[in-house]
């Protein structure tokens, strides 16, 4: 009989075994406490709601990224897809197309990009990193040449329900936060209880084994990247509605690294098959607290970038230390 009381677990080291998720969560709590004491105005309800409001788009993008990362992929074209598809929708609205139709076109475009990504990765067997890296450049270039005449596309004067997506409130909670929470719930259910979700984990854990046991890995890849692009489009809608415009220059910013930061920091290993929605939430909270604190402290944007980069690097080193790769088991060409 295994003795499962607290002391024996302590003796076996289980209670003390810290997963990255726990560490990051503790770190977030610690940071929260430190900021609450040291920064005036940090702990106010308004600031905290603002904090959540600010990071909820990042969180939604984190969910999108988490889906492909769990399946041992990555989507570096996520920001480009989001910015160009939404900016195109806004351009169409300004050209007189109805809001619903314009958003449908934008959504189809995002879905199309995702499907092409998935197809190239699954069927042309291009490594996901390079495929989506190239796709990001391609989508941005194509959008700027053919679809969107200006850098920044503004929302129409009367956006209706679309505007509420960014600026509405429900029981005092901003709409973006509600979108993030709703999508988190849906993502949790899908990842845990649907065939699509379970297959994603199998593929991330061992792609070859999943394929041999009959998982339709290629159509699954196409679906994963399609869904990711769709979530990205949703995140773009929220962004546009919140700030009244879509700035296509964010494609060239470091935003995609923030999204990866959320995912990796939360503890979803880049080698796939691990983690879930909870990790995204924890990662998002930590980044949110950090960014908010740094903004209150009035740290320059470039320095903020540096600090974020350093934290991401620390997270990667930590990830590599607790999930070490060695010469005998590392896969060739797995860069």
């Amino acid at each position, binding site marked *: 009989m295994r003795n499962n009381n607290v002391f024996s677990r302590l003796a076996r080291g289980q209670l003390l075994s810290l997963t990255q998720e726990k560490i990051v969560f503790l770190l977030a709590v610690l940071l929260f406490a430190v900021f609450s004491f040291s920064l005036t105005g940090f702990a106010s309800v308004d600031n905290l709601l603002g904090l959540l409001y600010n990071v909820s788009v990042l969180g939604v993008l984190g969910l999108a990224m988490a889906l492909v990362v769990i399946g041992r992929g990555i989507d570096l074209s996520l920001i480009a897809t989001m910015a160009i598809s939404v900016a195109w929708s806004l351009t169409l609205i300004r050209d007189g197309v109805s809001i619903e139709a314009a958003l449908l076109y934008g959504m189809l475009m995002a879905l199309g990009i995702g499907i092409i990504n998935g197809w190239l990765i699954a069927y042309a067997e291009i490594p996901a990193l390079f495929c989506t*890296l190239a796709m990001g450049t391609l989508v*941005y*270039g194509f959008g700027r040449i053919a679809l969107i005449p200006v850098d920044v596309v503004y929302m129409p004067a009367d956006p209706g329900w679309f505007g509420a997506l960014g600026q509405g409130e429900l029981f005092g909670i901003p709409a973006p936060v509600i979108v993030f929470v709703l999508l988190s719930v849906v993502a949790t259910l899908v990842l845990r209880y649907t065939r699509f979700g379970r297959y994603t984990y199998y593929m991330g854990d061992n792609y070859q084994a999943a394929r041999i046991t009959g998982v339709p890995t290629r159509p699954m890849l196409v679906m994963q990247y399609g869904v990711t692009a769709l979530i990205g489009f949703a995140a773009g809608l929220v962004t546009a509605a919140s700030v009244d415009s879509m700035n296509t220059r964010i494609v060239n910013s470091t935003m995609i690294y923030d999204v990866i930061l959320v995912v*990796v920091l939360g503890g979803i290993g880049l080698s796939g098959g691990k983690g879930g929605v909870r990790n995204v939430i924890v990662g998002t909270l930590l980044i949110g607290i950090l960014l908010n604190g740094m903004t209150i402290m009035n740290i320059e944007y470039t320095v903020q970038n540096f600090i974020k980069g350093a934290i991401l690097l620390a997270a990667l080193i930590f990830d590599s230390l607790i999930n070490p790769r060695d*010469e005998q088991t590392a896969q060739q060409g797995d860069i």
Partner: protein
Amino acid sequence: MSVQETLTRWRNKYIPDHVVGEILSKNWIDNTVPFLALLATILVFGQVIPDFFSLSSMSDTTRQLGEFLFIVMAMMIVMVGGGIDLSVGSNYALGNFVALYLMNLAGLPVGVAVPLVILACAAVGLLNGILIGYLRLRAFITTLVTLILVRALVDMLLLRYAVDISMAMPESALWEYIGIGSPLGIPFSFLLALVLVGVVHLFLSRTRPGWHIMAIGGSRKSAYNVGIPVRRMVCISYVISGALCGVAGALFAARLNSAGSDTGIGLEIMALTAAVVGGNSLGGGRGSAAKGLMGAVIVLLITNGLVRLGFQSGAAPLALGIILLAAIAIDVRWLKNRYKLLAKVYVSPAYLALPPCPDTDPGSASPYAQNDKLRNVELIGLGEVEGPEDVIFDADGHLYTGTRFGDIVRFRAPHYDQPELFAHTGGHPLGLAFDRDGNLLVCVAGMGLYRITPAGDIQKMTDETNRTPWSIIDDSRLKLADDLDVAPDGRVFFSEATIRYGMSNWAYDALESRGNGRIICYDPATGRTRTVLRNLIFPNGICMAHDGQSFFFAETWACRISRYWFDGPRAGTVETVIDDLPGYPDNINRASDGSYWLALVGMRTPSMDLALKMPGFRRRMARRISPQELIFPNINTGCVIKFDEHGTVRDTLWDLGGENHPMITSMREHKGYLYLGGLLNNRIGKYRLDDADPEWTGMTSYWGGVK
């Protein structure tokens, strides 16, 4: 001979389609696609853009190309080692800033400033190297982070110093020359970059560290297992990459003296595209400086060309994205399918019409009539030797044979009951011979010609010969040395069965039946190896004639015995002795009555004879069905025949049921007995010869009084 058969013969004689497979098997074939892409790019933009090739336009392009080449080489070296460096663009910007700071603000001389710049950028490379090499982080994501970190660092520094930098101008003629000088009309930075390409080429193809990096990229696990310091070498590749970025940054600073914040943004994607378009594989192991050079020129011409054609700002990223995707897709497909394609086209059967097969029916008047003389041979070493291709006796009468495990095994006279390990060669020992001094000479498949002293020491005699002029396959290396014999003056003549296949797939050569083999001479006196006869159809056994001026050799798939004079009045001539054997000849050895023993490893069949006249049939077969199902010469039943130098067959020994010696590749007469070896047998046979000289031994026949 029918018209169609004549046509087939002519077609196979004059259309060298085996060359296709040989060209495909060369390493440089990888470069053809990028090279064609380069030509196409130059042609298209040369046509579309007026004065594309004008001097001023070229000068500007080549100056940019100089800096860009450094970045591409930085990317390429890391990629060859199985990594990737996305921080090159930021590192380049850092190099630019440090150079400007040191020159404009600190006022250091060029000789001090440039090394410091390189050092600063190499430090970034070292950071990457430690993280990726020693801590085993993922290269892509790690260098992505250092990209952000270094970029943020440069931005912070620029905020502080940009104005001061643009106010000052360095007073250095050398610095100016680096920026805008043109020795011989060629921009300095381009000249430097060309030198770099040469150095990188030598580094990767001729030096130990370069080989180690290539090996790690080819197979990290194997590189680790053979003892290459994988972590250190990976780290070094990133340091080199960083240092090259530093040089590029310094060149850029000298050229433009600009502290703009957009320096090097997106450069990593350009460099990556260039490297991949040139044919350097993602994941490593395949890459070269030439590939990087081609890719760099293609990418720079396209991006510059699009700008000059007046496209909008999105055009360059769009084009880069499409090119990168297409190049990676082609690269992945090519790597995956190259060997499949090669396997389909490499086997190239030839037309071969054999003379009618002589009768072998028992009771017929044919000299080859079947009998059961070998049915009751004594067995030596049953189950203890595997694959004794050849057997031989030394002066003391001990029996030696090779096994497929790479050993030379000795059975001591007179009972030959206990095998003992004499030497271990490491390859598959085939033909054996003793020289005048009692050294055992052995042809080792896959290795070459080796000498084993009576004490068991192994010495290499030769493993390469002169390369055939204009040959596509590098045939200087010996792939399948088969049998040998020693001339009275000590020269060793040995056969190489085929230059197109090795020990593991020689059966394909039977399907080809092309003249792929040769006979080579090694002269111990001079140490020189020279090819004597070329284009033989699987030359196999070699045996010195009793006259000491010529040897007999067997061509297995041609079912033919020929004689070649290397000395005397007929030196250099070849004469066919028997051209219509009923089976496939293997080794030849001397008999005590002045004639020669010949082993037939297998017998001809009508179907195989017919297939040899139908190269198209065999080609389709090689392409469409698995190797196990291919038509193959029968080697289940064989025999030993005795022939004299006029080609008359004097005796034939069979084991018809195939119970003791189904496959015979060699036989050796010794003191009234004949000893039989077989490539796929697990025993040596001992057959009593009633009418032979009971005192005759091979050693005395060859070397006379040696005892």
